């Protein structure tokens, strides 16, 4: 089923021209689907933390920006040249490393907070980094940011080609998505879900709650970093606006309207968001189109508190079709796993 879906997504750039003019098909491939996937990866890092750890972090867009800035600072050809000298082969792993480290740092700083306090401290960290980047000229070129990050040439294919970009983004998203689904079944993932349901019990079992939390933030940092690298190449550079308050809130909106119950929600949410963000101005008054975006999101959250994937689940329940639960594994499954493990 999901393999079939993936194959359909892979073939989408060739399927789209069948239903719309070729120019539009290319626009949809690169600028709706490609952009949705890139945002979706960042949103998925938030969904991962929220679904399996119960942590809502507002720092994920900032962490993605750290990867983007690390790439722009290091890579050859960026304008202005800050450090330079690295090819994409070295700069991208370096950026992912930076994002992972930032994720771990955010996790470590916020390790003793929960709920609204966690939200506040991650938001504060995000805004702190945003302001620093915006005013620092020597390393981040301030308000204007770093431009001309055009992306590598991959096996003879130019990254600026819409098809190449789309498929690389799709493959990255698929790998990360499968990685998360695998990770949550490992002992680490099960402990993480245990922490979400009852941290005291997990601590009593002898696990270090703090270390697991920090590690989960590290994993989320890596995922967000992948999104940050792709988004920087997509935008041909990065400027502070990419990690500002608006962008931070957008990622939260995508996660919430998609649904925080399952990683796939991040991509559904980012697709809905991107479509409305792009076309709202065409279907509604240009001076007021943000109102339409707001109303749509309000409607989704009102109709279905668990987002778009919740709507899907409701419809299927209504039609009476038997289905697997999209809800994450609960405390009962962790107990089973404990008993199974030697």
């Amino acid at each position: 089923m999901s393999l079939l879906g993936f194959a359909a997504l892979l073939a989408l750039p060739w399927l789209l021209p069948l239903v719309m003019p070729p120019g539009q098909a290319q626009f949809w491939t690169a600028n709706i689907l490609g952009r949705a996937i890139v945002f979706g990866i960042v949103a998925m890092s938030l969904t991962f933390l929220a679904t399996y750890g119960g942590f809502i972090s507002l720092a994920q867009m900032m962490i993605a920006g750290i990867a983007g800035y690390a790439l722009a600072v290091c890579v050859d050809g960026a304008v202005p040249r800050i450090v330079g000298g690295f090819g994409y082969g070295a700069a991208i792993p370096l950026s992912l490393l930076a994002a992972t480290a930032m994720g771990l740092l955010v996790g470590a700083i916020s390790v003793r907070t929960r709920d609204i306090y966690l939200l506040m401290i991650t938001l504060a960290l995000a805004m702190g980094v945003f302001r620093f980047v915006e005013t620092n000229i020597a390393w981040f070129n301030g308000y204007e940011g770093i431009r001309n990050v055009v992306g590598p040439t991959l096996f003879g294919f130019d990254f600026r080609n819409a098809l190449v970009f789309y498929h690389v983004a799709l493959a990255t998203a698929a790998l990360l998505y499968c990685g998360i689904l695998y990770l949550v079944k490992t002992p680490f993932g099960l402990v993480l879900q245990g922490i979400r349901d009852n941290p005291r019990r997990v601590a009593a079992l002898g696990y270090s709650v703090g270390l697991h939390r920090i590690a989960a933030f590290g994993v989320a940092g890596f995922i967000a970093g992948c999104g940050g690298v792709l988004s920087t190449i997509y935008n041909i550079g990065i400027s502070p606006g990419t990690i500002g308050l608006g962008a931070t809130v957008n990622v939260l909106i995508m996660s919430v309207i998609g649904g925080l119950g399952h990683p796939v929600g991040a991509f559904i949410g980012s697709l809905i968001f991107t479509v409305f963000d792009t076309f709202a101005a065409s279907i509604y008054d240009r001076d007021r189109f943000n109102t339409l975006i707001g109303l749509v999101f309000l409607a989704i959250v009102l109709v279905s508190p668990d987002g778009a994937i919740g709507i899907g689940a409701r419809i299927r329940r209504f039609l009476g079709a038997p289905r697997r639960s999209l809800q994450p594994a609960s405390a009962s499954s962790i107990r089973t796993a404990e008993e199974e493990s030697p």
Partner: protein
Amino acid sequence: MTIRITRRATLLGGAGLAAGALAAPAVAQNTPIRLGGLTTLEGPFATGGQDAYRCVQMELERINHTVGGRRIEFIRESSNAQADVALARARKLVEQDNVDIILGPLSGAEGIALRDYSRTLTGKTIVNGSSGASDTTLRNPSPNFFRFSTDGTQWMAGLGKHVYQTMGIREVAVTAGDYAFPYAQVFGFNLEFCRLGGKVTHYWAPLGTTDFTSQIAQINRSNAGAVVVVHGGTDGLAFMTQYAQAGGNKPLVGGSIMADQTMLSARGPHRRVMVGMISGGPIADVIDDPTWNDFVARYRRRWANEGGFASPSIHAVNYSTNLYGILHALKEVNGDLSDNQAAFQRALAAAEITAPTGASVKLDHNRQAISDIFLNKIEERGNAAQVVAFDRARGINQTLGIPEARFLSLGSPSRDNPGCVATS
């Protein structure tokens, strides 16, 4: 009955097809030119963006949306002054709405992002809206990005000379915001003032500063003969209010966004000290020029009852100037955008136009405007303070007359590189 309808439909369809086939050549020639507008209708510069669209609409209405025998369709998009949003909207304009030319964006970082994007396009042209970062056209220019408006450094042309020679001041205190636009403006002022032998002390403050009292105390104690204020918006208002309250009485010199109706129409003690302030920029409220008087009169007639300002804003004038460039070139080539717009882009590069302010504009080899800059003074006229142009520096280029290689070697403006260097 069904058959009759089908037959009639077939006949009608056939007739329609035949008519379509006959009309087809005429349609191909008369497809409208699609002009995409990109400005900020959200975020900090939303009022400037709205005013820009007002003037673009007004000028298109004046020519009845037709140039070189072809209709112009204007498609509006909006960003929020962030580079990545501007880029997404520009991509939508080009790839979804299929525009031929983009007019925009409004702010500096957006301009640089669109300049980079324009390089990846063939057969499309981006003409600046109001963005004023100098690097957009100075370093790594793109062959299909054109700017008929001037940049932040150009706007200060003549000011340093005026302060040194006419006002006879040898030492000034510069207080400025700690980000790219003020750097460019301070750079432009210092290039002239320091070259003549003037001495400058800099006081930087981050964007959003509300308390300038310690800075003002230092400035008032110093030997500076004048204060150069390069803040904008609420920062500028805060500085001026506190300067007036502290009894500051040194002559004031302002950046281009200081001497502005948004400052002058606000109530408070700053208005007393601001009268007499000297500033430089691409426009003023009062310019003794028939072109400008006509433009302002038309603006007031068209927009007085629909939310327009008393006088067109700087963004509106910049968008109009760039629109004039586009219209001029389209007229030259008779609306011919074939051959990947090659002829059109050649006509753009060679265009010599007159801006709404009456300033003459032509482009340099980087497709950047060489134009006139006004020296302005704030005067009390009637019972309102107005920015009045008293002098005009003609034909100011992007390097303020310094050879380009020499200018580039000075480096990008920053707080560590404010332009106080020997340039000979």
